[in-house]
């Protein structure tokens, strides 16, 4: 009994950590630009598929991973420079559709250059499962958890202690004031998109050995990450991490103790329930709207 529970929990926290990273990506872009980036899932896909591509070129694993992160970051920069910046001032719905267009383009590019097949990425340290009290966990899951924890702390440091991090926070709080204070808002936007793309890519690379990857692998991950970000309260980074964990664990428990067919629904049922009672997420600020 307990072994089963533990097994579901292991599944849940692995998924949850991935959702948390994707959700963080949503938060960072939202904070800097108030754009919901529907291409966030595609960053995840580019990370996984990029690693497959660079490994195929014969590069050693660590180099291939770095190259994939760099490539995805370039896409993040490109998205900001070529699509978001020129559309400044457009309505929220228009911006959402631009990012949806971008996601279709990125999937299209991946399909044309890398094909439609599914690919496996070798696990970082083998496939031998580790036994814990009757349940098993893959070494790769430990990588997912470890890297996520590390990144969360690194980001905290970045936003609390570095000039650039503080500039991003300032811009998110009040763009005009930040501009007046001499913050280079353009650069802040540019950096945020790159940072968020890199986070997405890392998430994609970490889970690819567990879930396999292809050019469409980012769609569901993107949506679940969006769930995580909203659940935790948009723009609240730590909220997104908590949101991701809650969604992942709820999903795994739902599949285990309820019906497995409905596990994808669990995240969305949860989010509706939360929003009905707390309209700005679990940890979101309930502010007054300005007229």
């Amino acid at each position, binding site marked *: 009994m307990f072994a089963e529970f533990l097994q579901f929990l292991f599944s849940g926290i692995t998924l949850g950590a991935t959702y948390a990273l994707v959700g963080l990506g949503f938060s960072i872009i939202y904070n800097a630009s108030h754009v919901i980036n529907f291409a966030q899932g595609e960053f995840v896909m580019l990370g996984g598929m990029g690693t497959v591509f660079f490994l195929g070129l014969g590069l050693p694993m660590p180099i291939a991973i770095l190259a994939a992160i760099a490539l995805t970051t370039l896409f993040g920069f490109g998205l900001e420079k070529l699509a978001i910046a020129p559309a400044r001032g457009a309505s929220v719905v228009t911006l*959402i559709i631009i990012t949806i*267009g971008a996601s279709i383009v990125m999937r299209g590019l991946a399909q*044309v250059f890398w094909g439609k097949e599914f690919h496996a990425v070798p696990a970082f340290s083998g496939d031998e499962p580790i036994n814990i009290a009757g349940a098993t966990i893959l070494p790769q899951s430990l990588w997912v958890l470890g890297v996520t924890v590390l990144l969360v702390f690194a980001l905290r440091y970045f936003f609390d202690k570095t000039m650039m991090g503080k500039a991003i926070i300032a811009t998110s709080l009040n763009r005009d004031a930040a501009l007046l204070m001499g913050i280079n808002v353009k650069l802040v936007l540019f950096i945020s998109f790159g940072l968020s793309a890199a986070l997405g890519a890392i998430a994609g690379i970490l889970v690819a050995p567990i879930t396999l990857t292809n050019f469409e692998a980012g769609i569901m991950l993107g949506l679940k990450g969006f769930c995580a970000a909203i659940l935790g309260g948009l723009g609240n980074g730590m909220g997104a991490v908590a949101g991701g964990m809650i969604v992942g664990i709820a999903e795994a428990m739902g599949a285990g103790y309820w019906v497995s067919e409905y596990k994808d629904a669990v995240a969305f049922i949860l989010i509706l329930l939360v929003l009905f009672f707390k309209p700005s997420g679990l940890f979101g600020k309930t502010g007054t709207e300005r007229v």
Partner: protein
Amino acid sequence: MMMNLKSAKTGGILVLCAVIAILPAFLSNAFQYEIAILIGFNAIVCIGLNLLIGYGGQISLGHGAFVGLGAYGSAILTMNQGWDPLLSMVIAAIFTGILAFVIARPILKLKGHYLAMATLGMGIIISIVINTEDQLTGGPDGMYVDGLSFMATQIYWYWLVGALLVFSVWASLNLIHSPIGRALRAVHGSEVAAEVVGVDTTQYKVLIFVVSAVFASIVGSFGVYYSNFVTPDIAGFFHSIELVVMVVFGGMASTFGAVIGAAILTTLPQFLTFLHDYEHLVFGLILMLTMIFLPKGLVPSIAGLLKKGDK
């Protein structure tokens, strides 16, 4: 001013009637009729959705679910229960309307991205239910549905959809120019301000949400009777997104924009099939470029340009 609006309205409807009347001269086979009919169906859903997005200022990323409810409601009632197709359609529409009404209040309390998430979540849940309850719905493979016996040929369908489209445009334009429409525009402009001057914003938002859901449900039902087949994709996330994209591409807050957006984005993928692997890439690029350079959508942007030209 009033005169101007009126004439633009009648003029637009006359042009639409003329296009529908003349189009068959250019349609040479069943497939081309098929596309024309699909345009009609999509346009009607988009007109309803445009009321919500364009005039109500409320985004819905789950409208495909309402189309799906109409489609599957009709399919299940006619095929599994043996009911009359038209009765099934009405029951499905009433059911969809009630469901929309029940969820409208908590959902429409939400703002901006939270509303987007909630409608998206609602749509995905409905689509997962349709996918999973395969005893009832046929699961991912979809289900076969008998057609309407009196709609013997495709040409009948063409004229029926054409008539429905004209009616929908007319109804939408009338609603917009009624007191309800003015209240809605006030909601769109600033909800808080509208409330201050005594407009019950929630009531109007709920009303428009339900109306657009019923529009979608009826189209879903007709669509099923026309194509004799329904798959869960109709209720899925991508269909919902597609519908929003049609509205915004054509131009928000423009009834004819919704029609033109539906027409272009229904036809475009069929033209792009020759590109094979590059199809999706090119479609995405066209979508992005249009929204970057014409952020208000095709019809309002072009109308704006024409006005500038006049001066």
